[in-house]
């Protein structure tokens, strides 16, 4: 493991750990995150993890670019994946239904599976949170099995309902708030994904693992879900 350090801005360096996206990256990414946070301490402004990289934004009044490089190199010396370094494991309840997941049919047709099989296959895997982005609390998770993979919609929706669960290529995610979006929608979670009152704000953090659990309509409503059909948001 020899991470590359690249210049990205006057006060930002990119630590490139991998070239491809796999679940095996995560124990390394978490170990590197921990080391970098400790190494930079209060001089760290933000550490932005993505699938294969960690962007280090540091305080330029405290560190020169070369000092920052040295800190990174030092922090990542003899980096070892920490197999114990797993984030939290979440179970996310999802009401899989055509009214809130209009692409269930499309995924069924593409894969040759029945809608029930699509739901079962989506909910039986454990996914990793690779990165958060797009919106506060929006977690990019994967990888969904090949059969369920599908490209983004050619025309994104202007308004996707909050809680909507979708698939794009081999990734899956849930929309924290109403927003534009082009993912294939298959269901909706009643869980609050981003909450300014919660410690840590976001339900899911980079490195966490997530399993989706199919629930029925009554349970969805009991958990506070909003069952407004997606087509009413158009």
């Amino acid at each position: 493991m020899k991470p590359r350090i690249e210049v990205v801005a006057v006060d930002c360096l990119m630590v490139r750990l991998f070239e491809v996206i796999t679940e095996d990256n995560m124990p390394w990414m978490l170990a590197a995150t921990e080391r970098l946070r400790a190494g930079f301490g209060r001089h760290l402004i933000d550490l932005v993890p993505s699938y294969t990289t960690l962007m280090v934004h540091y305080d330029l009044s405290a560190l020169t670019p070369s000092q920052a490089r040295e800190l990174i190199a030092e922090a990542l010396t003899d980096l070892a994946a920490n197999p114990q370094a797993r984030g939290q494991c979440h179970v996310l309840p999802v009401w899989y239904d055509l009214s809130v997941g209009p692409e269930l049919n499309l995924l069924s047709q593409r894969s040759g599976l029945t809608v029930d099989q699509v739901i079962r296959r989506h909910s039986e895997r454990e996914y990793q949170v690779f990165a958060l982005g797009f919106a506060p609390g929006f977690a990019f998770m994967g990888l969904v099995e090949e059969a369920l993979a599908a490209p983004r919609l050619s025309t994104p929706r202007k308004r996707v309902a909050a809680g909507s669960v979708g698939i794009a290529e081999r990734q899956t995610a849930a929309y924290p708030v109403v927003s534009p979006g082009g993912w294939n929608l298959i269901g909706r979670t009643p869980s609050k994904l981003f909450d300014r009152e919660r410690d840590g704000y976001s339900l899911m953090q980079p490195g966490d693992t997530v399993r989706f659990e199919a629930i029925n309509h009554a349970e969805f409503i009991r958990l506070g879900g909003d069952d407004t059909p997606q087509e009413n948001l158009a």
Partner: protein
Amino acid sequence: MSRLLIEASTPLCLLQDAGRFGVRHLGVTQGGALDWVSMSWANWLLGNSLDAAVVEITLGGFTLVAQDDCCLALAGADLGAQLDGQPLAPWRAFSLKQGQRLQFTQPLLGARAYLAAPGGFAANKVLGSCATVVREELGGLDGFGRALAKGAELSYLRPAVELRELPREQIPDFKLKLPLEVVLGAQIGEFSGQSLFDAFNSVWTVDSRADRMGIRLQGPALQYQGQPMISEGIPLGAIQVPPDGQPIVLLNDRQTIGGYPRLGALTPLALARLAQCLPGMQVRLTPVVQETAHQQQVEYLRRFA
């Protein structure tokens, strides 16, 4: 407490500070004043900490009426400000008597004016900042990301302790056509030779497709020849090049990660200048190495000491 009633406003008049930090790994954008230099001077004029909450007024259309005797500072663009109908030039601290009206009419020079109050305008911080990000429903007077609206009241808590005068030579000259410095990024070698030449030898026009997320530049199409990228963290000022080849400078309200290749990132001083450019204006780009840009930035920050 001193209060000011908002008599007129637009969706482009926002409470801002230096931005929201320490939460970008959760997908929360940075936010904050686009022209950090002018925001800092506005605060400096009142002896505030440089990141105290200010009002960012873009283009004009903003009117305040003092409900008490007030003291404010104005920096940045000349938006044709008038105090009870009398012209009020920026880059100074000034007083308003109760009932006096402060009005921003139209952009005369620059695009964004910053209004500061002693100790900063009062607002609850959300995730460590009161920077307004409409899209994320964070910050602002109400905490839920709404723009400053007619009928709302701005206030500040502490009396003015120190009114400073800004030496003339410190006032940024928005008329100067300095090229915008770009710290070159890792994908720079993946652009065609012609594109690299074009990037730094062309005149770029500021497009009307510009907001707090990014400003598009119009000019020759730049050609990226590398592999498709995996999404990664986006720094402030990143110049990303989507498949149509027209670069977009990403600003404070950008998304936190993205997968378009980048030429590099504008320096903070270049970003402050770009934030004052109106659509149709022309800019040039020039490369700078990270160490030089760092030195320039540290030296500039000393001016506020």
